[in-house]
């Protein structure tokens, strides 16, 4: 038992951002109590920090997970159509998938900010949506590649930008995710003001 052991600051900051202001004290106190009382003495600093971080992620709302699943699904559908039905030009598909992606991230930000009453939550929602979706998208694309890697599909992958692009694109969406989520958050704050 150690009353001086502390979990990572970033994880506490993330927990604060995920919870309603009135809930932070009780929830973070519970986690800190367990961290200091049983987890840290039994597992040591590194594994206790990992435990704390995983606990914090359980507070990501199901709504964010749903938006992440939608974002990931649209990315994988786009990837699959590029691989199996390569077009002459990618412009139309790019426009559609970009619009869909922007729409999902802005809506995630709007929804989270509407619920919490804080526009900053919108930015966090956008970041988390894009972050979780990037992991799911990369994993999904890797599975697709493991199943379909015949010469024809490999040629289609190369002509659509290569597998490196499939891996990197979802990761590059995290920062825009924060910005688009913030836009949704601002839109939510403005609408709330107008309705009030």
């Amino acid at each position, binding site marked *: 038992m150690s009353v001086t052991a502390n979990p990572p600051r970033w994880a506490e900051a993330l927990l604060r951002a995920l919870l309603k202001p009135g809930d932070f004290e*009780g929830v973070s106190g519970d986690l800190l109590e367990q961290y*200091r009382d049983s987890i840290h003495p039994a597992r040591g600093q590194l594994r206790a920090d990992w435990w704390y971080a995983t*606990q914090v992620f*359980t507070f990501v709302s199901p709504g964010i997970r749903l938006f992440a699943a939608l974002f990931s699904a649209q990315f994988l559908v786009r990837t699959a159509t590029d691989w199996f039905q390569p077009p002459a030009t990618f412009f139309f598909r790019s426009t559609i998938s970009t619009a869909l992606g922007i729409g999902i991230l802005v809506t995630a930000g709007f929804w989270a900010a509407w619920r919490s009453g804080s526009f900053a939550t919108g930015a966090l929602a956008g970041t988390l949506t894009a972050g979780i979706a990037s992991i799911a998208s990369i994993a999904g694309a890797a599975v697709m590649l493991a199943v379909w890697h015949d010469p024809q599909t490999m040629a289609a992958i190369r002509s659509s930008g290569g597998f490196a692009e499939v891996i990197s694109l979802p990761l590059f969406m995290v920062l825009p995710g924060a910005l688009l989520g913030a836009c949704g958050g601002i839109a939510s704050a403005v609408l709330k003001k107008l309705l009030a």
Partner: protein
Amino acid sequence: MADILGTFEQAVLLSVLRLGEDAYGRAILRGVQERLDRDVAAGAVHATLERLAKKGLVASRLGTGTPMRGGRARRFYKVQAKGVRALNDARATANSLWHGFGWPLKGYF
């Protein structure tokens, strides 16, 4: 009839009821894990308590902090009359569903 409770909601409410005055987040989490005999995410219990509070089935108040908690207060939960009614209804529904069957089920396959 009051709200129809899911299994997880019943586990949370029963843990709060069993803990009485000591029903705060970490103790409830432990109670739910024991009741369901599996690992349960802290976030899932928190979300359920929030939902139950919104429905008026539980109420909460902040207690005092301890050094172990970095001075942060415990939030204590208490089952409300509406919560007890919902639990009774859930039990009655289960009993009614199982009427005419022995337990464990035997001889159907």
